């Protein structure tokens, strides 16, 4: 016992617990509960049936009261564990409830009615996953269409983002030309103009270009990102120019130099930008909300918001759809966590 205790509580730098250790661990445990708890609660709730969601206080796990079909009754009856007056415990099926008295029958012998005070009965509960929360919205609410739209926007935007920004970064890092400083300042200046500031005029431009109510209208306005250009440029600056000189000796065209030599060598930075682009596009909300008005063009985020904003919120569907929307991001995070956190720390973007 003592050895185990020592193993668990042993720490570097001395045996005694400094009070700062206590503060630190309290903060960590609090963080664990507060940061992960809500998402876990959402996931647990999404598997509950509609009636279980209305229960107060809610149960932790998705539980439902067991039912059984009983001879002589059209609907399956709910089962309860009942303590009878003589102290005997039996499992009975409830026919109806009148005030504080429940009329019950023995499911195997439905002839005789037994009256039980409701305080003496406990529902027989089992864990049951309400998978219909997930399957029904897929059929009824164009959820798959939203999903497809989101995937289309994310993939297309990311591919274009990588190509367009890496081309600009290549020109700005590997060529000396007049006006390079001006171009860099021009790109830097776009940092000062976040989307909400030019929401109205971008909408007007999109209408001039006839891209309103089209997924390309969602994709195009933000494929060129200043952070992307600078991230890639910084990386390309570290690639030795001798490589390019050697390729020129071998009569490679500038385009070939870009995509056969520079792009493969920039792969780590491209990967970071790709991960961020996927996150940005998958989670994007305000711009698609403005530019898409037809329901069948909605992305997941816009569709989910519209569905959750309906007058009569059907939480059992909303929760399940929220879990599905969250799922790709969680999967990416679990596998690429190291990339993402180090990417954020070095570039300061998100």
């Amino acid at each position: 016992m003592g050895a185990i205790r020592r193993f668990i509580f042993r720490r570097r730098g001395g045996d005694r617990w400094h009070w700062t250790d206590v503060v630190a661990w309290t903060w960590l445990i609090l963080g664990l509960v507060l940061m992960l708890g809500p998402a876990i609660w959402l996931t647990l709730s999404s598997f509950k049936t509609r009636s279980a969601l209305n229960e107060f206080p809610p149960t932790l796990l998705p539980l439902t009261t067991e039912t059984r079909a009983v001879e002589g009754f059209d609907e399956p009856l709910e089962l309860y564990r009942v303590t009878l007056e003589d102290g005997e415990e039996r499992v009975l099926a409830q026919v109806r409830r009148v005030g504080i008295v429940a009329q019950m029958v023995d499911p195997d012998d439905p002839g005789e009615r037994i009256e039980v005070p409701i305080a003496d009965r406990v529902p027989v509960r089992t864990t049951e996953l309400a998978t219909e929360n997930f399957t029904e919205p897929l059929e009824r609410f164009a959820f798959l269409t939203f999903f497809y739209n989101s995937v289309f926007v994310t993939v297309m935007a990311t591919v274009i983002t990588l190509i367009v920004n890496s081309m600009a970064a290549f020109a700005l890092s590997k060529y000396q030309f007049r006006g390079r400083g001006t171009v860099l300042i021009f790109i830097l200046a776009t940092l000062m103009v976040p989307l909400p500031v030019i929401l109205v005029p971008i909408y007007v431009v999109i209408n001039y270009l006839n891209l309103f109510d089209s997924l390309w209208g969602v994709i195009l306005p933000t494929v060129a990102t200043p952070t992307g250009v600078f991230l890639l440029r910084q990386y390309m600056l570290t690639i030795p120019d001798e490589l390019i000189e050697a390729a020129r000796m071998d009569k490679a065209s500038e385009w070939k130099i870009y995509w056969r030599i520079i792009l493969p060598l920039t792969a780590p930075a491209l990967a970071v930008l790709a991960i961020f682009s996927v996150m940005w596009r998958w989670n994007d909300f305000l711009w698609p909300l403005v530019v898409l008005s037809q329901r069948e063009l909605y992305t997941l985020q816009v569709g989910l918001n519209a569905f959750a904003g309906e007058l009569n919120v059907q939480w059992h569907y909303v929760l399940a759809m929220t879990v599905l929307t969250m799922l790709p991001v969680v999967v990416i995070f679990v596998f690429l966590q190291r990339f993402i956190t180090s990417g954020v720390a070095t570039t300061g973007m998100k």
Partner: protein
Amino acid sequence: MTDETERPITSTPLASLRAAAFWPLRLVMNLIDRPLTWLQATFGQRAMIVFFLLPNMAIFGIFVMLPLVINVIYSFTGGSALFLDDRVGVGFEQYQTLFDCRDFTDPFSCRQDAFWAGVYNTLTFMLLQVPAVALTALVTALVLNREMRGRGFWRAIFFFPVLLSPVVVGLIWKWILERNGLLNALLNGLGLEGTVWLGDSFWAMFWAIFVSTWAHMGFYTLILLAGLQSIPRDLYEAADMDGTSRPRALLRITLPLLWPTMLVVLILALIRAVQIFDEVYVLTGGGPGTSTQMLVQYIYQTGFAALLRNLGLAAAASILMGLVLMVLTLLQLGIAARRSREVAG
């Protein structure tokens, strides 16, 4: 040894799979190569530079710079027409409408009461959320900077909400704050009375601030953590030899050296707070009443969601917001430039 290195790379199944995946891309790139080689041969290297820069510049031009110009023109026009040719000039009328107030401290005395409600709510939000997010991120970064096992795991835990979409964040917390929700159940379990959290203007603002702090704290934690890790170890060793207590080392070494990073965090958080919209919009819808309606929501609603949409008014409001953001961003860039100079020097 030489056998190993001379084996062609494509022989492994993974490499051939990757080659197959990139095959369409290679085809396109090779097809483009012909005309581009011709371009280079005819017009020289400069043409290629222009070619490499053009897509990026075109998108920035069409979707950032052009809109900026249109926005200014738009804010001086009125009417319900969408295209610029059809709109009528009204001078400063849109701005006058926004500033038409009897008493600037009371939004309800203004003609555009929703605008001023948005301004004051955004200000309240900024003043409370920025310190909250900076402080919690600081504590978390200090805790995560300690030597302990599973640091990567703990860092991931605190960073996790950053990746969730604002809609998901809003819905997760809306569900917890429901009348029959988890929070009320927990309070009941402690013998306390719950309430309809999002139906009360004070609590709605509280939760808007709480939830956006929850969602973004991990991001700033990582930045601060990078700042903490750049503080030289030997400073602490020297302090330890002098018998300096841990809290004193924190106060005298860590915090002063972390201040430049903290400044970046504060300004980044401010820039984001001015633009706060989506997670609060999903969580509260701006309600109850207009008590959590932010500036961006006013722009969105005036320009796009209202029945009688007024794009000119929305443009004027967004220009006012843009001016504030421009000052903040210049401040950020100035600090970043000073820092890189300090590092270089």
